[in-house]
């Protein structure tokens, strides 16, 4: 219990540090968004003071000292008030992120977890049947697929399954004729749209999990406790799962944590290729349009999601490995 509380404390501390950095970093940059906008206008001629005042009012020039600003900012973060997007004016940043986040979390998050679970299971099987076809096939094809850059796999899938055979929609998260919500037609449509990006991520990440688990498990299969379990006549299922695989999975959890942390921020390429309206796609738009409030909110999201993933994996470690609890 102490272990979990200390992890939770560490999580809270790092989250606070991340939020604070997110506040400080833009303020360390010289100039302000208003200056940038005025400088752009100034290229076409002098800017009169009224325009300057209007721009500053519109963008909201900070008032008060740094500490007061920080205090306001903390309150805003807690109430999820990240201001208004420049690009999608007058939509609020919170509403934009709110509509993109579920798509990314469901698509990339679920697929990442699924890839880990499926890959690990295949890896266990491959190691247990080492040297057989059950080992060679997934190991070889897994490393083959993992060698492709995933946007390239995405383009191949898009070309063949999307355009040539027209089995799946080629872009977006749902069709315009459906109403987002918990209704049958929308969900079916959303799943159809998610297939290609999901398959892309699955195909390219599966190989890593298979190889990682297989190799770790081949290591643990040679460990004394596995031989001893066999000598004690335990059923082979017990030996494979509770002894060999149970220990082999531990080093792979770290990789899983990194992958989970990358869910929110790392989906940019896939979402871009499939024009999928998730966080990555939103971030792409924010960066190309210099949409500072949106970028700032997204960076915070990405940082926090890495921290959450770390916390989840630390907790998993604590549950799975008694040695970390001490």
């Amino acid at each position, binding site marked *: 219990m102490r272990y979990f509380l200390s992890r939770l404390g560490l999580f809270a501390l790092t989250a606070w540090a991340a939020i604070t950095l997110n506040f400080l970093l833009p303020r360390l940059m010289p100039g302000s968004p208003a200056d940038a906008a005025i400088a752009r206008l100034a290229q076409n001629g002098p800017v009169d003071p009224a325009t300057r005042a209007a721009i500053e009012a519109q963008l909201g020039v900070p008032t008060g000292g740094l500490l007061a600003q920080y205090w306001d900012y903390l309150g805003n973060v807690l109430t999820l008030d990240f201001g208004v997007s420049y690009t999608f004016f007058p939509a609020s940043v919170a509403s934009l992120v709110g509509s993109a986040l579920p798509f990314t979390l469901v698509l990339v998050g679920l697929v990442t977890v699924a890839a880990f679970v499926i890959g690990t299971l295949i890896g266990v099987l491959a190691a247990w049947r080492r040297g057989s076809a059950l080992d060679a096939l997934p190991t070889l094809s897994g490393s083959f697929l993992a060698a492709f850059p995933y946007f390239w796999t995405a383009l191949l899938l898009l070309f063949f399954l999307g355009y040539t055979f027209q089995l799946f929609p080629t872009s977006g998260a749902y069709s315009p004729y459906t109403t987002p919500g918990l209704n049958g037609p929308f969900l079916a449509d959303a799943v159809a749209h998610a297939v290609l990006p999901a398959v892309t991520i699955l195909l390219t990440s599966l190989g890593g999990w298979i190889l990682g688990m297989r190799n770790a498990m081949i290591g643990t299969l040679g460990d004394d406790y596995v031989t001893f379990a*066999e*000598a*004690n*006549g335990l*059923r082979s299922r017990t030996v494979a799962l*509770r002894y060999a695989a149970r220990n082999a999975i531990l080093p792979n959890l770290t990789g899983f944590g990194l992958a989970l942390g990358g869910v929110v921020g790392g989906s940019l390429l896939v979402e871009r290729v499939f024009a999928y309206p998730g966080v990555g796609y939103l971030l792409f738009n924010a960066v190309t349009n210099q949409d500072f409030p949106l970028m700032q909110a997204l960076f915070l999201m990405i940082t926090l999601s890495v921290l959450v993933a770390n916390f989840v994996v630390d907790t998993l470690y604590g549950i799975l490995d008694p040695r970390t609890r001490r």
Partner: protein
Amino acid sequence: MSLLEVQDLSVVYEPSDAAPTHAVRDVSLTLERGEFVGLVGESGSGKSTLGFALTRLSKPPARISSGRILFDGRDVAALEDEQLRAQRRGGFAMVLQSGMNALNPVRTVGNHFRDVFAAHGHVPRERRDARARELVEKVELSSTVLGRYPGELSGGMRQRVSIALALALEPQLMVFDEPTTALDVLVQHAVMRTIRELQASEGFTALLISHDLGVVLESTSRVMVMHQGVVVEDGASRDVLRDPQDDYTKMLLSHYADPRAEVVELPGLAARGGQLVTSASTAPSPGRRAHGSGSAPRVGRAASAAVVVDGVSKVYPPPRRGAATVTALDDVSMRLEPGQSMALVGASGSGKSTLAQLITGVVRPTSGTVSVGDVRVDALRGRGLRALRRDVQMVFQDPYAALNPLHTVEYTLTRPVVNYTGRSRREARARVLELLETVGLTPVEQFAAKLPHQLSGGQRQRVVIARALASDPQIIVADEPVSMLDVSLRAGVLALLEGLRAEHGVSMLYITHDLLSARVVTDQIMVLHDGRVVERGETSQVLRFPQDPYTIELLDAVPQPSRAGGAA
């Protein structure tokens, strides 16, 4: 009918990328019910391979190439998987070498028992917990260990747990493969006693596989000696001790002696009786320091330096929150004169390695001072430490881990020669060859080009010693330099260390738990217990007439072949 009958058994290792090795060759043997038999051999003799074959745990690339194993009249090799699994209950069980790692680190001890009971169903569900408690109490553990994880237990406790797990199978035959090798002397002694008592009370047949003839002779009624895959000796323990038939057995026996004897002699090592040691003044005077045999003159350096440790304590912070601090050393003082050799003995945790780390400047004392010559080791940093390491070198315990597997012997030895003695590359090479000559690795040219994995354990340890000599040191700290080596190789390495002291005037701090080797290579001895010096003096004096109960306990734990057959 014998419980186990092995007929013309051969086991071959067939790795896909190397020539096959015949590990066990045409071995025939029988074990009668209730017998306690020992199987002795050095590393590579095939004894463990045989043990694994008997319990059908051999895995590729090992393969039984011919012969039969009849257990209770049934051919073990012919058993189907499920029959074999069933046979492991009430049939043959095995306790593994390094039982420290024989338990699943993520399952509690209790769960290990549950797994065994669930696999065989031979204990009714409601009796299982009680039975597990009974079993751990049989191996002299408290039943609270059932709720703990293996990582929370000491090595000895873990080995006891694996013995209890094997007992849970109610076996007729128990194969113990080096059950106490990785354990501390005193713990080893206690675990062996438990094994003997259990064998007597439970009445199972036991096969004790070990590299240590002393341990085996002390425990068993019959002993087999294996050498290069062949059983060369098989007879009652008492007879083997008194009248060994095979030359190999005779050689093994010659390496055992009682450290308490008046004169102790090991092959290749001169006798050290009471006459040799009078006091520290017998240490070779600086004038006697020979500079021959490749030892370069110590230009601009003090000819000799004594190690003086004065009132040193070392306290480590608590290992985890809430625990107490750990006092590794408590007010220890000592003096090692130039050219002297001193043994530092004690069980693990006694603080002997900490003292070595203090003298080599690896850790700093919490209080007290350490000096080598007129240099205060405890105050050194950076450059000063580097200079110290030229004078004080270390020989490590595990020759398998002390050499970088990617570098040739020549590279390994060239580094310290170039770094510490400022020789040019070409001079360094000549010095490296000299060093190899000194440690007896000839032909030197051939050994210089080798990689560590191409060398045997004894040869590797010689390279480690040559590396320690490369900087032309005045003091060598040898931390259990022979404990990982086969008995037949030990004497050679010990003789080498002894020769360095006698010919080169190098003083030596010899850290060990092995009192016999301490007796033959050191003049002075210091016994550490829980960080305190409990006894010190001339080695022969202290070992022959020990005063402290702890020293006596250590001496009693030394395996004595002469007690052969007295057990059971």
